[in-house]
């Protein structure tokens, strides 16, 4: 299903059309669940976050504007921020142990060569590998600067500057 079809459904959701909401769920939930699972790394918590995100999408469909990017992009933002909120509230990393088989790995990424080459892919590829790693850890792991620095075994200051320099390079490359 493409952006125009998502948009058609979202417009109906904005006026309370439950059937359209179900179609939108069926069309997008697998992609959004993959995002949620990647961040939460626990099936129950990922399902809870997905559920909360869809409730929010139902109630806030009218807030979507084309300025927010494609419909799916907007929905991914909602899922990611819900996951980050849930991580903070539940303090997942301090508490719940994760089942080994539930943890996703980098193998869950489709090879970029199989996907239409997008500008961001190109620009990400231009980054130094440590910068790329730090940005991925923050984006998909919801990691703080401190956690990123622990993960890549660098002092806090250098992890911060890695991310900031990476962002500056991305920005220049993306022409922002």
């Amino acid at each position: 299903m493409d952006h125009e079809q998502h948009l058609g459904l979202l417009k109906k959701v904005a006026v309370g059309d439950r059937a359209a909401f179900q179609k939108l769920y069926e069309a997008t939930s697998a992609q959004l669940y993959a995002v949620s699972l990647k961040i939460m790394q626990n099936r129950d918590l990922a399902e809870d976050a997905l559920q909360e995100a869809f409730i929010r999408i139902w109630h806030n469909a009218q807030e979507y504007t084309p300025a927010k990017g494609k419909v799916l992009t907007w929905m991914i933002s909602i899922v990611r921020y819900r996951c980050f909120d849930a991580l903070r509230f539940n303090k997942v990393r301090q508490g719940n142990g994760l089942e080994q088989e539930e943890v996703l790995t980098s193998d869950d990424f489709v090879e970029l060569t199989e996907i239409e080459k997008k500008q961001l892919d190109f620009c990400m590829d231009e980054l130094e590998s440590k910068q790329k790693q730090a940005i991925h850890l923050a984006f998909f792991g919801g990691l703080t600067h401190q956690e990123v620095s622990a993960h890549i075994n660098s002092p806090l200051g250098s992890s911060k500057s890695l991310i900031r320099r990476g962002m500056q390079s991305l920005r220049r490359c993306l022409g922002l």
Partner: protein
Amino acid sequence: MNYLQQETKHALAAEFVLGTLHGSARARFRQLMVEHSELADTVNQWESYFNDMALHLNPIVPDDSVWEKIQARLDNAKIKSADDNVVSLPQKTNNFWKGLSVLATAAVVILAVLLVKPIQQPVEDSIQFTVVTDEQNTPLWLIEIFTQKIEAQATKNVLAKANNDYELWMVPKDGSAPISLGLLAQTGKTSLPKNAIFEQIDIAALAVSLEPVGGSPNGSPTEVLYIAELAIL
């Protein structure tokens, strides 16, 4: 710091989207997004770029129970809304995700109020509420919305300002200018008349600003300190 300077704007927006902008800095940035739409636009731009990365994940079909739970929650909300004949609320303005911390904070504030005051028979139940908190989630005011009035109960955490007033605003969802709801007392309870516009527009959040004594001199918030989303009871 000039938040609108190109370099700063992009650095903060990108880190907001990435999730590395945390705590009080994140809360402050959210406030700035309300005040400056170009910051929100920059965030949208970064979201568009970064979220494309998420499309590289292989889709994973969630368990059927997720959709069943979503349906059940929407059905319950519908029943609750039909039962509520005090005021007819537009269903689409309902904001379910309020966050456990806000609800917990509300419970604490309500308990605190009940413990220090003799229980009175409520004349009317509030229909919406929020707790205004600072960056550390410390409760400052409990705001309750009734059909005709708005009541704000200040907690002891409100910083007393002899040379300033705190002013309450509603922030329209459509991005238009905040509308004043009146001044908030720094201690005790304030009762404010409910602006008729309150029911006529979709409200993104309430905001509290710091103003000279007597309130905003120009009809716009001088310095937005706190933002709080409303929850429907």
